[in-house]
């Protein structure tokens, strides 16, 4: 079965700390991978995406993610977080080009000023 697992449910960091959020997926075929972010009171927004090519993808606001096919992982990173990064982060898988997104359960990031 296709699934996405996010290891950290709630992460608390101080400003300027480095961030890494884990994401592993289960699917044997071609995948498109996404990280979406939901800021408090706002709707889901795309942070970054991987379709093919360079496995290190850069997104908005200094975020990046690395696709490691052998580990079925797509971890999100940011070298130095800001208070405004406080939000919920969702990793998502699109199996093939099916259109269907399968989301992880989300990680709540709280950044202390």
């Amino acid at each position, binding site marked *: 079965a296709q699934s*996405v697992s996010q290891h950290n449910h709630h992460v608390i960091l101080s400003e300027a700390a480095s961030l890494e959020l884990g994401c592993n997926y289960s699917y044997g075929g071609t995948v498109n991978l996404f990280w*979406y972010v939901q800021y408090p009171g706002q709707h*889901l927004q795309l942070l970054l995406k991987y379709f093919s090519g360079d496995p290190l993808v850069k997104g908005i606001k200094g975020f990046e993610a690395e696709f490691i096919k052998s580990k079925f992982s797509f971890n999100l990173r940011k070298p130095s977080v800001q208070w405004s990064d406080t939000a919920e982060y969702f990793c998502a898988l699109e199996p093939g080009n*099916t*259109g*269907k997104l399968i*989301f992880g*359960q989300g990680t709540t990031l709280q950044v202390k000023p």
Partner: protein
Amino acid sequence: GAGVSQTPSNKVTEKGKYVELRCDPISGHTALYWYRQSLGQGPEFLIYFQGTGAADDSGLPNDRFFAVRPEGSVSTLKIQRTERGDSAVYLCASSDGTGNEQYFGPGTRLTVT
């Protein structure tokens, strides 16, 4: 340009009643998706339209749920004989095809009492 809009933003209904939730996609987007997000969980895929037809309805939980997109633009998600377990945020997204970024609306929060 305008994003995806959803109406109503909140809907409270009694158990057993019928509800309709509306989604207006981004103009020109051919693909439209419905997801359901329960508290503390990631969005769960329900159905995907390509144009007027449902390309994948494998996520609809049972036959009480039905969705239409008669003119290939606006879509309505219909829920019959609502149950308390249907309470969730119903999200709509649109894209200009599979394998492309999905743009999410603000969601409709459905509460069944």
